[in-house]
């Protein structure tokens, strides 16, 4: 559907059925996928606005840079592995196969859980070395942004747990193909968000 072509059509001139015998959606994709992509746009806006606020706040004089804990690199690797495993699951289900599907899909979620645990440990370490949430705006943003990212990941894990249950209870790959694909898209999105957040948090 070309947007210009749509918007310049003259609906009062043409009568009859346009678009053939099937109802014509604007996108040739399942509604769930369209819904997810729109949600990802909204989430991108949320993260971008926080990022803008972060840079605006950084300019003010009371900002004291926070040196990011080295463990974040390790956590990042965990999240990358998680994303890779989801992609693996998606490739398997794309071939309508079942081999190693559970390992890949469930493994992907487990690595995401490990990532969240890693993030919590990082929080704990920061707390014990006296970097509290309210002691400096840089710290506040650190907790806020990592927390928000973690919450999004938890939301994904909720969907993942439902799909995993269906997978273990023996659903055909075809039935859960869409869930696995959408989880993969969501995980890649959250990986990209994390990489960007990591970059801007390091850039104090």
């Amino acid at each position, binding site marked *: *559907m070309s947007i210009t072509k*749509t*918007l*310049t*059509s*003259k*609906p*009062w001139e043409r*009568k*009859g*059925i*346009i*678009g053939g*015998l*099937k*109802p*014509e*959606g*604007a*996108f040739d994709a399942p*509604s769930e996928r*369209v*819904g997810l992509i*729109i*949600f990802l*746009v*909204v989430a991108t*806006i*949320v993260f971008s*606005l*926080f990022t803008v*606020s972060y840079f*605006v*706040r950084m300019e*003010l*004089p*009371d900002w004291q840079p926070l040196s990011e804990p080295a463990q974040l690199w390790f956590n990042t690797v965990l999240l990358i592995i998680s994303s890779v495993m989801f992609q693996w699951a998606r490739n398997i289900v794309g071939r309508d196969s079942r081999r190693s599907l559970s390992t890949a899909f469930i493994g992907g979620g487990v690595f995401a859980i490990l990532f969240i645990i890693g993030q919590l440990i990082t929080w704990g370490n920061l707390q014990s070395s006296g970097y509290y*949430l*309210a002691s400096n*705006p840089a710290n*506040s943003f650190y907790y*806020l942004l990592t927390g*928000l990212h973690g919450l999004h990941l938890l939301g994904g894990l909720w969907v993942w747990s439902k799909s995993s249950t269906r997978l273990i209870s023996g659903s055909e790959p075809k039935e859960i193909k869409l869930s696995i694909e959408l989880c993969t898209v969501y995980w890649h999105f959250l990986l990209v968000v994390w990489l960007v957040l990591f970059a801007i948090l390091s850039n104090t």
Partner: protein
Amino acid sequence: MAYVPLTDQDGEMEMHHPRSWVGKYVWSQDHKVIAIQYGSIAIFTGVVGMVLSMLFRLQLGFPESVDFVDPSFYYQSVTMHGMIMVIYLLTALFLGGFGNYLIPLMCGARDMVFPFMNMLSVWFFLLSVLILMASFFVSGGPTGAGWTLYPPQAAMAGTPGSDMGIILMVASLAVFVVAFTMGGLNYVVTVLQYRCRGMTMMRLPLSVWGIFVATVMGLIVFPALLVAGVMMLFDLILGTSFFMPAAIESGQLMDSGGGSPLLFQHLFWFFGHPEVYIVALPAFGLVSDILSCHARKNIFGYRMMVWAIIGIGALSMIVWAHHMFISGMNPNFGFFFATTTVIIAVPTALKVYNWVLTLWEGNIRMNVPMYFAIGFIFTFLHGGLTGLFLGNVGVDVPLSDTYFVVAHFHMVMGIAPICVVFAAIYHWFPKMSGRMYHEGMAKAHFWLTFLGAYTVYLPLHYLGFLGVPRRYYALGATDFIPQSAQDLNATVTIAALIVGVSQLLFFINIIWSLKNGKKADPNPWGATSLEWQTPDNPPGHGNWGDSLPTVYRWAYDYSVPGAPEDFIPQNTSENKEPTVDEEHFDPDSDDSLADV
């Protein structure tokens, strides 16, 4: 409860069929029930907002006449009135109420794409309203910071509700954003993906276009409110200083400090200005359909109307700082935002011309919806023109803190959208309830509301020119405010009370008509769009009986030369045979699909 695939027809969705009363009317996933739930909660909240406005109007017209309206209560009721009317009444009613009811019906769908999420949306909305109402009962009462909630003032002692009130307010807004996002995803995906056969985007009635673009805008800008709200909650509860600058409270330096209140203002208005259009665009769409139908004439310039809706939506994202001219900014920014603001007048004026030209030489039927629709053109034009004054920095600076601004925004985004709300409720009431309203009561309601609103807001423009400041609890004695201004204020209050009380006519009418109204024709106005062509009136669960409609034409084939009637429904094919099966057409049936 079970999922039952309806037919093998292409593009059919699986419907969710509740068996119990609770499943049907409380935990309902039917878009029509959800729409009415949304609408009822919104209108109830709106009545609270209206009562608050009558109380503080009493203080303004007759100072100190009511005991419990002290300065704190005054600020609290002004704040809550603003927030309730903008967010919890208008946004929720237009998108959650009319959006939910009309989108699936007008697109020819059986329901929203994600009915469960739709249900969650209304319950989250109810939760947000409950949190909001709870703030009336906590110690310190609701926040009195003004609906803009600017920090640091909102969080400092001396502002009413600066401890619990403001926290509940922000929390309620955050929940509202979540509710809106769930509903909004539904509206957008339904319009994009669930249109019936033959229904192209450019065949959609303008109502759907208005609601669709407003929802897209909402999805883009409500995150700004969420972001601002989350950071503010951190500041309030956890002692961070995203927004809180160094400040002295009761002689003590506050713990937090160094934050940027201006950042809050930018985030707030990046949401706050498009919010005006989130309310206005659905109103534009609905009023276009109502005018066209009751003038028996196609809407003038359909394509232009669609382009104008999109153009206004896009432009409204880059004008927000015109609310901040007096916050101080680089003059170049001021110039930029003043220019974009004034440019919005172009697509908006285009729409007003097109409405008037739709009426031109139309076969106008003065039904009640038409009264309100024409009332909308007047009030909107009025409020829009004063907006042109205020868009200019030089004019805005002296007028910004006066009643001129109050008059401007009440005309343009208070009275005008409310006129459309009433027009739309009267217009679609026969479809929603299956009964007609009482004509006489509805006309009395219109005249009292319309003339009353002018009696309230025209004098406020004048008070603004005099320089009477807004937001003040009492004016006191000054040289530049003559006694006559005080008398005018008293007149305004009396008019406001009359308008407020006359809304009872509306409620009595609706409740009376639900039981005793004349049974309505399935299509009493002779309208073309799909919602009037449903096999049942009001539409049953699943909307369309056995098969989805097919659309052969746009939504505005009124008074087509040579046609047997002065309207041709969208689902009538070229050879003039109606596609709704007359044999299955049973206006008395209540629910066609419950037992499928």
